[in-house]
């Protein structure tokens, strides 16, 4: 009975478990109990997401849905659900949060309880945004994510944290406010078109038939919000600051999940809502993505600070995701590239998260992140070296790691639509190896130049507990991508296909309101 109840409310439970636990953690008087409580809460949340993973039926669209009226007079609902595109990201968020709590277990500094509670709060926000199928609920969660991040960077960050966190918040909020305007305008358009108010995303998809001219500004607003979050070049400058100043945990969650919100939003909202404008904009976005790939890699190369290097590598890697999402061929997104983009999101979360953890391991020991302060660490810290090399390989996309699968599929799909973009992007693969291997070499190899480094402790058991699953995941994702992708593929193909169907219909039918009835069978293939 209880199980049945859990099963039928699994999405809601997953979203709100961390929030509830966060409240308990704050109230809990004992730090020890609070820590275990937080970990248990995150673990429960992870188990819930595993439950969703297990019972997810590939190819049957939106699942685990739950819908309640929220503000019925305005047509605003609480509507959550899971489909293939969000499933992996949900798993990643819940999984990473568990690891983060373990990683921050012996946290130096004040307010650990608050810190844990904020992390759980953040998890709730992320899960809500990933599962929301109501534009208003999505927007609420989208903004809610900023609050804990603001404090995590602003309170526990480095020397320059206030600047970094203010910039992060203002920059992101700037984009999302524009998105809010666009969302309201979309809402009113829906009312005008169909006579009722609705913020249900599935309803709003029916607006995709609007003429391109009226979608133009809406798309721009949405795309800008997501581009800032991704961050797409040239909207990336908040990222190095935020990453460098954030505590390790903050960097991991920022790179691991929050950046994916941008690309996720692109796939969930910007593309299906405004297919016509997207078609016109796809080349622009791909070009920006490619610039981001090469630019991020080149800038990363010369960074003296390990964390900044990894931060710029995120710009480069997410450029791949954008390029993959924008590989339009014959008015259709290439399903290969789209699959690659979704996979690359996950993979980037794992490998870059791992890299941030590893940099954090070093920082905990030496309180510096400058590459020149290290060197030759492979001798005192052999296991650390193994893990760093695995993370590096995942990051440079060596075959056998998840990075290869993602990048390969993206490039493969992009090549079919635009060879020039793909060739330029594959330069990013080369440059990625350049800076990552430089990082490895400067940290691990060569003679030990600093005396302090001679006696550094190798990875502790607790750190190994965090890093080993990530390392295994990096390799497992490359060896058995099918395990991860089988559940996702139908949704991706569906996204690619609905898009193409829409394009076909648009040619045949008068421009306004043409997608009301869904697609006839004749559109397929």
């Amino acid at each position: 009975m209880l199980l049945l109840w859990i099963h039928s409310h699994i999405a809601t439970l997953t979203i709100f478990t961390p929030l509830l636990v966060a409240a308990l953690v704050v109230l809990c008087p004992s730090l020890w109990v609070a820590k275990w409580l937080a970990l248990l809460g995150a673990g429960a949340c992870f188990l819930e997401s595993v439950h969703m993973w297990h019972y997810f039926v590939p190819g049957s669209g939106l699942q685990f849905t739950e819908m309640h009226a929220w503000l019925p007079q305005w047509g605003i609902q609480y509507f959550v659900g899971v489909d293939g595109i969000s499933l992996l990201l949900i798993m990643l968020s819940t999984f990473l949060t568990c690891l983060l709590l373990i990683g921050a277990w012996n946290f130096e500094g004040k307010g650990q309880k608050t810190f844990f509670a904020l992390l759980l709060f953040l998890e709730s926000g992320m899960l809500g945004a990933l599962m929301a199928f109501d534009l208003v609920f999505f927007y609420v969660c989208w903004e809610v994510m900023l609050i804990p991040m603001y404090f995590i960077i602003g309170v526990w960050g480095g020397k320059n944290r206030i600047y970094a966190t203010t910039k992060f918040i203002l920059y992101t909020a700037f984009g999302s406010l524009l998105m809010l305007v666009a969302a309201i305008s979309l809402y009113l358009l829906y009312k005008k078109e169909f006579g009722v108010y609705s913020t249900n995303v599935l309803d709003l998809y029916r607006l995709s038939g609007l003429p391109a001219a009226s979608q133009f500004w809406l798309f721009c607003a949405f795309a800008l919000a997501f581009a800032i979050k991704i961050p797409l070049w040239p909207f990336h400058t908040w990222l190095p600051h935020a990453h460098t100043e954030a505590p390790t945990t903050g960097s991991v969650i920022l790179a691991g999940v929050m950046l994916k919100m941008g690309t996720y939003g692109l796939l969930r909202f910007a593309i299906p809502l405004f297919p016509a404008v997207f078609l016109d904009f796809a080349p622009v976005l791909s070009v920006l993505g490619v610039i981001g790939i090469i630019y991020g890699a080149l800038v990363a190369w010369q960074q003296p600070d390990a964390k900044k290097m990894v931060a710029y590598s995120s710009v480069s890697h997410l450029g791949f995701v954008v390029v993959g999402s924008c590989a339009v061929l014959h008015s259709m997104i290439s399903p290969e590239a789209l699959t690659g983009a979704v996979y690359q999101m996950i993979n980037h979360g794992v490998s870059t998260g791992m890299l941030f953890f590893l940099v954090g391991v070093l920082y905990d020991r030496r309180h510096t992140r400058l590459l020149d302060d290290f060197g030759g660490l492979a001798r005192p810290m052999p296991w650390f070296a193994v893990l760093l090399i695995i993370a590096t390989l995942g990051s440079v996309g060596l075959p056998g790691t998840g990075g290869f699968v993602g990048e390969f599929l993206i490039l493969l799909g992009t090549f079919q639509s635009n060879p020039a973009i793909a060739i330029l992007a594959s330069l990013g693969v080369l440059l990625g190896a350049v800076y990552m291997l430089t990082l490895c070499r400067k940290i691990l190899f060569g003679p030990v130049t600093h005396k302090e480094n001679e006696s550094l402790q190798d990875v502790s058991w607790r750190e190994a507990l965090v890093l080993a699953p990530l390392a295994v995941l990096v390799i497992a994702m490359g060896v058995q991508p099918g395990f991860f992708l089988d559940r996702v593929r139908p949704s991706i193909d569906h996204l690619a296909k609905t898009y193409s169907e829409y394009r076909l219909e648009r040619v045949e039918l008068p421009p306004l309101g043409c997608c009301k009835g869904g697609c006839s069978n004749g559109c397929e293939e």
Partner: protein
Amino acid sequence: MIWMVLLFPLLGALLNGFLLPRRSKLLSHGVAVAAVAGAFACACCVFLEFFATRHSHLYFGFNWLQAGKFTAPFELVVDQLSGLMILIITGIGTLIHIYAGGYMKEEVTTYRFFAYLNLFVFMMLLLVLGNNLLVMFVGWEGVGLCSYLLIGYWFQEEANAKAGMKAFLVNRIGDIGFLIGIFLTYKHFGTVSFSELSSWMNLMPTLAEPYPKALFWITLSFFIGACGKSAQLPLYVWLPDAMAGPTPVSALIHAATMVTAGIFMMTRLSFFFYAAPDTMLIVACVGALTALFAATIALVQTDIKKVLAYSTVSQLGYMVLACGVGAFDAGVFHLLTHACFKALLFLGAGSVIFAMHHEQDMRRMGGLRKHLPITHGVMLVGVLAIIGVPGFSGFFSKDEILWKAFIFPTYGPILWGIGFLAAGCTAFYMVRLLCLTFYGTPYQDKSAHHHHHPHETPWYMWGPLVVLALLSIGVGYLGVPDFLAHLVGGHNLFAHYLEGLIYIPASAQGAWGHLHAEHAHELEWGLMLSSVALVTLAAGTAVFCYTNRPVRGVASFLGGHFPRLHQLLLDKYRVDECYQRKIVTPLAEISTFLWQVVDVRVINGCVNWVGYLLMGTSGIASFRMTGSLHRYGFWVLAGTVCVLIISCF
């Protein structure tokens, strides 16, 4: 069985890398040797099974990668080529593993070394066994990774780590070519499976547009990949640096197996290459030029491993030349013989280095024949094999390549001429190496510390050398050219063996008619005899120059008469410096510029400027914000009254 071939080395790598206790060197060595030997045994079984039927077998593992319409199953193929390759890899691999136990005796972290080495064997097997481009690519980059790790095995030296990185990065340039080749193949053919591509090409009587053009680009891309891995002209720079790794690694990876992956891949895709004659001409030219170019550098090098490294580049040039002139079978045959004698030479050099306590400069050797009789013997065999003395394996394979180059319709004689010259150089520098090392008078160490007498290596180090020496003589007889084989009533066994695999697609038959045309045997005899003569001449010159008279070598001759040429050769044509100056440094400068100027100043500056603008505006707008509660209250009240008054009208 085929899975066992793969499983053994992987298991060995995992055991050594993660699971086994790390103290015992004997244990890690034993596990590593057992893993490769087990793989060799299984590979023999697989090969025999295949050889009985001569039908290629596909082994489906699991569905690896699937997205949209793209599928890449994890599927292995055993056919003439991969069957041969797994024998080479595991066979020579076993010998080198055994040898390495002795060579790495003084090391502390041997488990790491053997884990990498086993992983390398696994990756290499994956490379040759994969039935589609993607699985091959996994192995392709995997061996690159292992090469990176092994070159940087002595990572405490900054230079070694840098050499490893250089190898990885230069290989990556080639890998991008490979990737683009895969993309193009998928774009035009919709599949990346070798068997499907092969049958498609086989069944197509003529190729209409856009295929010829597409095939040109496809093959060119793949050739760039091959250039990276097989160290051809613009991308060869990593291989000499790769000698920073332990010598067994140089033998296994940088001579016998990994570097031949490019030739293997081109042979796998021979149906594409045959259909793209323009690429073939490029391939042939690059191969021939590389052969000569590297050989000339090797003439003056003084580091024993550097000489062998440039010799490897040169020999790889021969193989690429063979591919370019359409003689893939000759290329693969040279691959086989080269694997034997070059592994032998490297291991022999390793024994010398081992005996000399890690001294690699040949000017500090000499007269080692007495101290290292077995090593001397096998090295002699190796040198005779590589310079192509009749009866040794290199003779047959190199001669076949030169002959095929000669009959190549476009610039054939020129290609032959270049290869011919390179053969002369080869003979000279190899004999020079032998003379400087083993003959003449021992080097008198003028420095104070006492020089130990070099000792012959233990049996488990010379044992593999002897086996390899026997192979260096023996395998040549598998591929005796037809015109010689006819003398005893046989034919070219090796070409016959590969016949089922390497075929010219129907659409390209016209361009390659000369390969099957009848030729005058006199010409063949003539060419062969002339190269024998050249080799004799060159070897004789070397003996004359270097035995007992090290000062009167070519070095001093060149140094005396053409100092600039000599310096140029010693500096390896300054290609590395050129790359550094023209590519790496500007790129680093661009990178710094992008970071310091574009990112920090321009983009971030713009963002901050918006912030400053807002702050400035708010500063102007906040002049009434005096902080005085009275004023605030007054304005609140005044505003209220105003609203009231307005609302009344």
